[in-house]
């Protein structure tokens, strides 16, 4: 992989949270993200799927330097300058913030209810001092708002006047106003109705072309991810278990978890009987994950070595661009 093409190179990062019940008890550590490596190419639409507890949100926020990265490296290549997020100065962080932004899941809590839409969209410009005068700010706000199909009267209103889909568009406009190169969309369509979902996804796709954006799209909804993303990474309990171009992943999943996930998606065709692979048991606690392959406790057909926890996790490239955790590679 040509390193010029990678916008973001994530190498073996872990994100730990320490947690203490009260200030007299012992500190406990939860590894929300463990030893994750992923390369995000410039201009691509990378999907990150996983269920609850997979660590996808934590990973997304860690890449935006909103969570502290406990180990590993994340490098953001921006043309001639590299930003190492694990070792970044205050000044560099300020610059990075202009280039990488986040779109939230819940359109209702992501917008400050007491600010007008114009102020909400203008805030990044004002805080990051991107524009100097009010006219410049207004011009830029109007420009980005029209790209998100918000018109002038909308700018004067407060968030309570808008529907979910419209609010999400305001969120998107806010994320784009600083002219970023990289956007993390954290479950950005999960709270929307299906008919609006399609609208927002189309908007994201067209904005990608128009503004040369790179996306990391976090979702639990595989069918949505399949349609919009080029590359998909599947996460389970803090680890990435499979990465593949989306068509390849859906046609030819190699990891048992991916297979189970795909089989669980209900089909719109009532004739098609569901043949969901049943995963036994519950997701293990993040405080006490299984040794070796974390999926072994629920894998439908583990080998003896898997069950014992002898096999360490690590991605192996089985086909060009298709990486699978070595536990499942050995199974075949």
């Amino acid at each position, binding site marked *: 992989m040509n390193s010029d093409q990678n916008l973001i190179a994530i190498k073996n990062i872990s994100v730990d949270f320490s947690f203490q019940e009260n200030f007299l008890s012992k500190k406990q550590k939860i590894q929300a993200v463990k030893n994750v490596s992923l390369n995000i190419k410039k201009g691509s639409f990378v999907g990150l799927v996983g269920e609850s507890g997979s660590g996808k949100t934590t990973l997304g926020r860690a890449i935006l330097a909103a969570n502290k990265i406990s180990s590993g490296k994340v490098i953001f290549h921006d043309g001639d300058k590299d930003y190492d997020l694990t070792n970044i100065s205050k000044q560099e962080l300020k610059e990075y913030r202009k280039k990488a932004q986040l779109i939230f899941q819940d359109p209702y809590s992501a*917008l*400050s209810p*007491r*600010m007008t839409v114009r102020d909400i969209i203008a*805030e990044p410009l004002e805080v*990051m001092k991107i524009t100097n005068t009010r006219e410049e700010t207004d011009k830029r706000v109007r420009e980005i708002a029209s790209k998100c199909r918000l018109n002038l009267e909308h700018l004067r209103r407060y968030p*309570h006047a808008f529907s979910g889909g419209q609010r999400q568009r305001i969120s998107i406009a806010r994320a784009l106003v600083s002219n970023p190169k990289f956007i993390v969309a954290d479950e950005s369509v999960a709270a929307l109705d299906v008919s609006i979902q399609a609208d927002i996804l189309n908007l994201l796709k067209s904005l990608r072309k128009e503004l040369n954006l790179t996306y990391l799209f976090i979702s639990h909804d595989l069918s949505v991810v399949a349609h919009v993303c080029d590359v998909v990474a599947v996460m389970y309990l803090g680890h990435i278990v499979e990465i593949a171009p989306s068509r390849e992943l859906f046609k030819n999943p190699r990891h048992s978890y991916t297979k189970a996930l795909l089989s669980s998606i209900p089909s719109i065709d009532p004739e098609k009987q569901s043949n969901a692979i049943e995963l036994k048991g519950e997701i293990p606690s993040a405080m006490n994950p299984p040794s070796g392959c974390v999926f072994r406790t629920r894998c439908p057909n583990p080998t003896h070595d898997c069950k014992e926890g002898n096999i360490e996790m690590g991605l192996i490239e089985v086909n060009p661009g298709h990486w699978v955790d070595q536990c499942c590679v050995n199974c075949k």
Partner: protein
Amino acid sequence: MEAKIQNIHKDIKAKEAYFSATQFQLIYARFRSNRSAMIAGLFLLIMILLGVFADFISPYDPTIAGRDKDYEHGAPQIPLFWDDNGFSLRPFLYTLERYRGKDTNFRWVYTLNKEKEKRRYVYLFPKGWKHKALAFNVNLPGKKFDFKIPGFTFERHLFGIDSGGIHLFGTDKAGKDIFSRTLHAIYISLAVGTIGVFIAFVLALIIGGISGYFGGWIDGVMQMITDTVRVIPPIPLFMVLASFAPPEWSSETRFFFIACILGLIGWPTLARRVRTHLLSERSQEYVLAAKLCGASPSHIISRHLLPSFTSYIIVDLVISFPYMVLSETALSFIGLGLREPVNSLGVLLQNATRADVLLNYQWYFIPVIFFIVLVLSFVFVGDGLRDSADPYKVLKK
């Protein structure tokens, strides 16, 4: 057709107004539809005006200087428009005549002279005792801090009578007009309440704000301080302070002191509310969005957090007011707060505890009605504000 288009335009305008309404406009609109709150608001406004313009409205100086020696323990005198002798546009009072002689055992006996010639007429805007506005004469401990602002002197009052006295609520033992004293008491209570609430509010904002915004161990420490202050028992505290306060302090200084102390022990409740609001708001996603732009804590607090709970804080302030007033009343009543000659409800009530007052001079209790109205109107306005406070929450009918 025209009317239909006009209606559509009006609808669109109304809708647009709703969409662009700031939170205060929404709160005000909601408050207006709450009838009991609006009526309470009206009463509150009247009370406040009575207090602020107490000097102008009261016909007599509420201190010893204005006492009416001829009419001690006097019953309330209500002006009449009509009596057997005919109607008069100007309200009038009967002349009171005193007589004492052997037949009455040398005790003063009052009789009313209902003759028309002896009527005394009420006038508007007569000249009366001098009163000052905006004059400050502060004597703080240490001569250096004393300062005096002369202010304006007025002589006019709202109403008066051509001869003798007019005592709408009667007089007390020394002949002081209870009506004037009541109005001044309202003023003093409002002033104590304002200063107390102001001090409590500033402290609560700072301590609750730091506690709520930063969380962690800072929060822990601040909460311990808050809880400590909250459990300080007010009565013993005031007993100690009362004994420490030097007697040479003027009544104004004393008044200021009491108000400050009330504020200094009243902030914990408010601080707790501020902290709770902040703790819940700061985990909202829009705060994270601002942080991801690199916004500084002061920007986040002023732009996002403070506006989100300004409405609640206003409600808290309005509701704390009556507590301050009642605390001061209670303290003054038991003698630990303000004392004669300062007028406050507590002081007025102190005089009312004697048996002969209870039996004979019931008009001493008229100020109580005023205070009940004052406190209740604060409470109702506060309730109404609280109901309208979150303009983005749907009201349940």
